[in-house]
Each structure stands twice: as C-alpha cells, then as structure tokens.
C-alpha cells in the first residue's frame, strides 16, 4: 500500500507544477539558455589587413587622423607609429609639415590616458625644432593642462612646457599671451597670489583667509617640478641673448661708411610703435605680445607679479629640502629683475 502510493507520487511528480511563491524569484525554466558569458573578442572574418600595397604617405595621414580616435590604445599606437616614421624619414621628406603634425597632436596634451601623454612627449621631442610654426595654441593647451584637476596631467604638461622652453625659448615668451598669462598660471598654481591682497592672514573683507592648500599630501614632486619649470621660463624670458661684440664689429666694418644705419632701416620688429597705442583699442595686458626682455620685465613688474613671486619664493625657500633648492633657483632667476628694478 505504502509503496504503491510512493510510486504513484513519483510517477506524478513529472507532471506537477512547481509552486510559485509570493515575493520569491520565479524558478528558472528547464530549457532556459545561460546568457551570462561575455565575449572576449569579436572575429571579423573578412578584413583587409594588408598595408603593403598602400602609399606610405596615405598611411602616414591615416595614422595622423587616428590621433582623434576614441580608443586610447589606438591613439597611443598611432603616436608610436608616427614617432617611428618620423625618426626613419628625414625632415624634408615628411608627408606633412611638422607644424601640421603639431596641430593635430596638441589636443592630446589634455588626454586622460598616461601612456598617450608620454608617447606624445616622445613624438614632440623628435619633431624638427625650427619648423614648428606658431606656438601660441600649444601654449594654450599646455596652460590648460597645467591647471587641470588631475595631478598626472599637470606633471606631463609641465614636461611639455619644458620641451617648449628648450626648443623655442624666444617664441614661447614673446607670443601673444605667452608671457603674462603663463606667469599668471604659475602664480595661481603655486598660490602665490596672497601678495595682491594683504600680506597677513586676513583677507580684504576682514575675514580669516584660507590656509594654503597643500598640493598632493606628502609628496612635493609636483611643486618641485613647477618651480624648476618656472626657473627655466623666467630665464628664457628675462635673459637678454648674449651679444657677440666681434660679430657686431665685423658687421660695422662691412658697411663701413654707414653709421647707425639700423635706425634708418625698416624696423625688424612687427608693430614697432605699438607701445604708443595710437589708434588701437584699450590694451589687453594679459594677451599682449612682449617681444623684448625689457618689455617683459616691465610687464612683470607693473602687473604686481614680481612682488608676489619674490614673496612666494622667500616663503618656499623656508621649506628647505628639494623644494627649497628649487625655490633658490627661482630666486636666482628673479634676481635678474630685481637687479634692474
């Protein structure tokens, strides 16, 4: 009796419905397909991968266009390919002029991926220095990078600025906005703008000022780098290129009967009477061009930044260590102005 009931139950169990319970998940169907896998790769069966048949300049252009790609690996690879290609070819045979390459590559200064930025620096370093074209856009990107939120981008854009100063010191400091705006960026980065208000710890409106924000707890790597780059920048902007007396003598001898003939020639500078500002609109001191070291000095002093920098440097020197040493370098560069002023 019992066994037969058991058997009956077993037989019936195949046709029984599973009970659904309120609030519980529905049991899976027996014929359900598991879709929880993820594809590791997608294989395209037909894709032409042969690059051999194509013209090298086409490939070059293709890689140049890949710099604006969405995938960071692709950007990095394109940069690496370009680096190799440029080192292999000589500068005259490049399919695109270096200025065009620079134009395409400069947005990558603000790229989020570290490997792309480092590869970019490698590419820039091998570009021929004398054919870079106008540099104010690169400088804009660099300044944006220097004030970026992420410390990594800050560091790498300081590297770019180092390269720029090394490559074309004259044009960097004399291009539009290149001098004052870059200095202002440094000022805000180093938070040396305390001198503009009152020197004490009270701000202009009589409230307690904020404590100086400590950039990246513990490590002073960024600060040291900033100070070093600033030193280089100040030197580039303030030091007058050495005059070769011999050369001058030779030049004078060549056009002997003439004396002081430069004064009567067409001016070599653009807009020589610009400082008079006869018919222009109100001067925008920030984005102006300062072509002479004297002009730059004056702008540096009149904008009040000189005082702020001197004060900041003395503060920074007190920190000692690596920072102190770097600050001493800045102080030395500042000495150029202070001596004159």
């Amino acid at each position, binding site marked *: 009796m019992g066994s037969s009931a058991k058997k009956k139950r077993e037989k019936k169990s195949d046709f029984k419905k599973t009970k659904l319970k309120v609030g519980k998940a529905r049991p899976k169907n027996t014929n359900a397909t598991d879709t929880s896998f993820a594809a590791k790769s997608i294989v395209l069966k037909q894709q032409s991968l042969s690059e051999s048949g194509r013209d090298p300049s086409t490939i070059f252009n293709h890689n140049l266009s890949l710099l*604006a790609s969405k995938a960071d690996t692709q950007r990095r690879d394109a940069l690496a390919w370009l680096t190799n290609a440029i080192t292999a070819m000589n500068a005259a045979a490049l399919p695109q002029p270096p200025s065009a390459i620079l134009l395409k590559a400069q*947005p990558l200064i*603000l790229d989020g991926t570290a490997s792309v930025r480092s590869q970019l620096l490698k590419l820039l370093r091998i570009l021929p220095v004398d054919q870079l074209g106008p540099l104010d*856009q690169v400088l*804009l*990107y660099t*300044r*944006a990078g220097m*004030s*970026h*939120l*992420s*410390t990594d981008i800050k560091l790498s854009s300081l590297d770019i600025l180092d390269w720029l100063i090394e490559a074309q010191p004259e044009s960097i400091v004399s291009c539009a906005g290149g001098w004052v705006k870059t200095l*202002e*960026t440094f000022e*805000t*980065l180093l*938070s040396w703008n305390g001198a503009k208000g009152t020197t004490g710890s009270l701000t202009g409106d009589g*409230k307690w*000022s*904020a*404590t*100086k*924000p400590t950039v*990246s*707890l*513990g*490590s002073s790597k960024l600060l040291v780098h900033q100070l070093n780059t600033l030193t280089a920048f100040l030197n580039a902007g303030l030091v007058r290129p050495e005059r070769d007396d011999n050369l001058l003598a030779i030049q004078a001898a060549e056009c002997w009967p003439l004396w002081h003939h430069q004064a009567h020639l067409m001016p070599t500078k653009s807009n020589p009477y610009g400082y008079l500002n006869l018919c222009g609109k109100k001067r925008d001191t920030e984005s102006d061009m300062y072509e002479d070291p004297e002009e730059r000095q004056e702008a540096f002093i009149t904008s009040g930044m000189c005082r702020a920098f001197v004060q900041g440097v003395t503060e920074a020197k007190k920190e000692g260590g690596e920072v102190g040493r770097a600050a001493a370098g800045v102080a030395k560069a500042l000495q150029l102005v202070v001596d004159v002023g």
Partner: protein
Amino acid sequence: MKRKLGALEKVDADLPNLQHKLKIDPRSYEQDFVNQYSQYRSLKELFLQSPTTTDDSGIVRLRDLVDFVSHTADCYPKLTTAFPLDLVELLDLHHATLDPELRDKLVGALVLLRRKETIDSVQLLDTLWPLLLKTPSKNLRALLFQKILSDLRTSNQKATNHKLNRHIQSKCFELIVSDPTSAKGLWAVKLTRELWKRQIWSDAKAVSVMKEAALSQDAKVVTGGVRFFLGGDQEREEAAAEEDTDDEGNIDMGKLRHQAGINKKTGKRANELRTAAAKVKRKEKKKNSPHQLNFSALHLLHDPQGFAEELFQRHLQPAQPKVRLVLEQKLLVLQLVSRLVGLHKLTLEPLYSYFIKFLTPKQPSVTSFLASLAQSAHSLVPPDILEPLVVKIANEFVSEASAGEVASAGLNSIREICARQSLAMSDTLLQDLVQYRKSKDKGVQMAARGLLSLYREVGADLLRKRDRGRDAAMGLRIGEKQTARFGEVGIGEIEGLELLEKWKEEQGIDSEADEEAGWNNWDAESDSDDDGEGWINVESDGEEIDISDSEDEREKKAKAAAKAEPTFEAQQSAGNTPAATTPASSRATASLEPEAALKREESRISRLATTRILTPADLAKLNELRSTAAVTAALPATKRRKLLAAQTAAASSRHADDPLTAAQISGLSAHSYKATRQEKIAMAKEGSREEGGNDHRSTTARRKEKKESEGKSTSNKEKERKKNFLMTLGKAKRKGKRSLTQERAILKGHVERRKRGGKRGNKGQ
C-alpha cells in the same frame, strides 16, 4: 600610505565632487576654484580660436567646466564678474555653429545664473529674446521660448514685476512695429498669448501689443493677433478652471488623517501630512481671497473705433492689399471687426455694404458671414442701413424653392439681426417670413417660429392680428407694449423686486426702521454663527494636525456652508441682473391683474428701487420669494407662458461678450439631413466624452464607472459573483460533509460576526 593617496587624488579629480565641496566651504576651496576657472578660460580661448573645428573632447570639457562654474559662481562673485558676459558673448557670436549640447548648456547656465541672482531677469531676457529671433535652429527656439516663459512666470510669482513686464512688453511691441512685414512678430504674439492665458499679463499694454499684431502686414501675425482677441479670454478662463479642478481633486484631508491614524507613524508620513495640511490651507486661503478681476481683451482696447476702422480698411477693403489673406483668415478678421462693432456699439457704415456681395447661398462658409453680420448689428445702427441687407437675405435664402437648411439659415440670421435692431424689418416682409412656420422642414419651422416669438416681444404691431398671440395683443390694447424707437434705452430693474415689495407690505414693515434692523440683524446672525460652532477656527490653524476630526463637527461645517450659500447667490444675482432684466417675468404676474393695479405696482417698484439700499437680509428674502414664485408658476395653467418667458430670458441673457457662431445661425437644420457614417462616429465619440451625453452604454456600466471614478470598491455581492470558480470548489466539496457540531459552530460564528460588524469589527471607522 601610498595607496590611500592615490585614492584621494582620484576622488579629487572629478568636478561634481569638487562642486559639492565648494558649496559646503567656499573659502577653503577658493584656490581650487581659481584653478578650474583658469582652466575654463584657457579652454574657452582655445574654442574661440577655432569655434567650428574644436574636437569633441574639447567641447565636452568646456561644457563640463561651464556647468561647474555656473553652479559655483555665486560663491565667488568677485572672481567671476566676467563669466556671464562670456557666456552671453559666446552665445551671441557662435549660436549658429555651436555644438547643440554645448549651446543648450550655455542657455541653461545663464538661466541658472539668473536663478542664483547673479544676473537679473532683464539682462537674461535681453540676451535670450534677440537670440530667439535670430537662431535658425528649431530646437534652440523651443528651448529659448520655454526658458523665457518660465523666467517671466517665476519673476511674477510672488508679486507682479511691473518693471520687467513693461520692458518685455515694449520689446514685443517694438518687434512688431519696427518691421510689420516680417513673420518674426509671431514670437511676440505667442509670448503675449501664453502669458495672457496664465494671467501674468492682463493689462492694456499686452492688448496693445496684440492690436499691433492684428494690424501688421504678415498673414500669420495678423491671424495670431486676431485669434487672440476672438479666443484669448475664453482660453484664459478655461486654463483657470482647469487649474482649480486640478487642485481640488487632489487632497482629501479626512482620508489622509484616517490613514495617519492607522498606518505606522514615521517622520516621513508625519511630514507628508503636514505639507498636505499646509497645501489645503493655502488653497482655502486662495479660494477665499477676492477673485482677481480680469477684463477681457476686447474691453481693454484703447480705441476700439479706430482699431475696428483700421482693421476693416487694411485687411478687408484695402485699395492695395499689403497682406494677402485667404478666405479663412479674412473671416477671422471680419469676425473680430463685427464683434468690436457689436460689443462697443461702434459706427462703421462701410462694413454693412461690404457684406452685401457675400450674402448668397453659393458663397463658401456663408453661415460665418451671416453670423458676423448679425453680430455687427446693434441698436445704434440706422435701420435703413440694415434693411436692404435683411431684404437681400430674405430674397436669396428664404424661398419655397431653396433647400431647408438654406432657408433656416436665412431665417435664423434675420432673427438674430432683428433681435439686435428690431427696426430693420418691414411689416410685409415679416408677415411673409412668419408664414414659413407652416413649412414641412423642421429647421425652417423652428426658425420661423423664433422670428415670430421675437416680434411678439419687440414689435407685435408689425405682425398680423391673428399672429400676435394673447399676451402681445393684450399688451398692445392696454398700451403697455410699444415698439421701441431708434436709440431708445430701457430702464434697468431688479428681478422679483415687486415680490419683495408686496411681502413687505403684507408684513407691515416700515421701510425706514427696517433698513437699520436688516443690517444689524444680518450681522448679528452671521456673528453668532461663527461663535457658536467655531468651525472657522478649526480650519484656520491648518499647520497643526488635528486627527480627531469627528463626524458631527464636519456636519456642522456643511450646515454652515449651506447657510452661507444662498446669501452669496443672492448678492451675485443682484449684481448681475439689473442690466439684463426680463420684462417678461414682471409682466407674467402683472398681466393677470386689472390695469389700474398694474400702474400702481409699477410706480411702487420704481420707488423701492430708488429710495433705499437693499440689505443682505432683503436680498436673501428676495431670493426666497423668487424661488417660491417659480414653483407656483410651474402649475399647468401657466406652463405655456413660463416656457415663453424662459425662451425670451435665454435670448436676452446671452452675454454681450459671447460671440455669435455659424452653428447658431445654421440652427436645427444641421440635424435635418441624414448624417453620414463619419458624422455618426464623431457624434458618438463626442457624446462619450461629454458628461451626461448619450454614450450608448448600459445603465449598469455607467453606474459602475461612476463608482470607480469615485474611488469606491465593489460590493461583497459583486466579489462573490466574480470569485474564481476553482477557488470555491474546495469549500463546496467540504460543505456537504460537515458534521452537525461543525455546522453549528459555523453558524454561531456567522451570527457573531454580523453583530460585531465584520471580521475586524467596525470600531476603527
């Protein structure tokens, strides 16, 4: 240490986080803000150097930074003085080429700055308004319009911002006036209409903007302006009514309190209840506050005569038309002109001769022309101008040979014209037309009867003797009824005043002493009402949640409200009726009495109305007397007369502001032919949408829907009937096998439950 550092920096690197921290402590994060601001500036400069070729990532970054700065700019007002100007400049110069998302972000940022009071409304709207007119992008226009509208609404929310309104109104005005030929004026029309609808702009200046629009030289702008005058006020009323019903249906305070008593008490629920109570209180306050007096746009016009003349000359009868209007648009303009003429009783003689050439049955949408003509007739139009028109209508439309609907449209329009100027009719023509009441066609019949009853009222001597009817004939004989002469104005009186007078006489109340008492008595009554029951106090402190709101208290409220109601109605009717009195009702009682009594009565009425001010008590009594008089009038002997009176009352009480439509002209003839399938479907659909219409459903279905809409559940019977068959099976099986003791227990339990009132009992209710 190093791992932690990494994590911290990662957190630092996103803007929303920084934004949050900035808002908490702006002073400490000033340096970070300065960094981001300079970042924004360099990105903006990069963008400005090549606005069209900047890559996606640059634009995204710029957008993020704009968002960030606009959210935090109010913390550093000194540092960001240039920021709004930057945004304005960006939008101004590059709106056509900007990336759409960045563009919308810029607009949003400006609006945000306005909300944070960094810039003021005038500045914002001065930026957005020209942009709205300039931009070729449809999306941007929609966005800008919406932003402008919402900004105007918010700045008018607490109090009317007259300065801003005036500024924007003059901008709209200038837009239309400076270039009347451009279609850009449509934006001014749209904005004004929208704000009029929401009762934000309800002054004469807004109306003058629309007036200029109606007189402009672009067809779209013209129709926009004209449509505003024809439908703007109605739209406003509808919007207001919708708002009212929307709000009222929402909160049932009693239910909420009940729920709060039962449900678990949490802070959130308590808060919800409190906010609901506050909302109810606010609404109550709003309801009790004096209703905002809104003049219709047609009444706010500065110079209606000039406006009507100019509209007519520019758009309807121009020597050289500056704007080409299609027939439909012309009809709209004509409708407006005729409404202006009818409403303000203007004199515009060329208008009537203009109508003549359109008065043929072949003319498309001729009923609209007829309606306009009737609308433009009023008591100050010389009858000899209207008479040829009436004759023409009679000749063209009304004949035995013409179709039923044509004839009825003609008759209806003649009736409408004559209702406004009864002198436009000659006796021979009238007697001819009245004969059509014997027509086979129902529509024509009714129209002719309408004309007949109208002339029994206003000019019975034009009718043939046997058509005059008893009342009119008697009236003529005793000399009470005389045709009004041209330009004659009737005297206003209060309906049912003679009843009050008679009642006073019967009661023997001296008018002098009574007047004082009436006021006193009324005041005392209302005061005692308040003190005794104190229901106003309960309602007035809505902040405090009173859960123990018992049943009887609510009842008291209802009673008090019911008491208050009649007085309100009385005042209302007293305020409304003097202009639109019905001589019919006074005559209804008077005609039964001898002539001398009638004279006496009339003199007394005038004395009462002119010698004293009716107290609230008087008005309440008046209302009561009037309703009892209505009940006696419902007796079968007076039924016919009552019907007649109601008809004339309806005709005369049609508000002067209401337009006359083509549908009214075509009248019953609309139903005289067999409807097509589409029309039947349309009618059925309309009926189901309307309340009380025949929606072709069973009574049960309708009842059920009503119950459901009231939020009531089904009855137990219904539930029993609907219960799933399989669920009842088990019980039915067991039911037969119960033992006697089980049966007894069950029966006992049932009785017990009945006594208690359900399983849980009715205690909670």
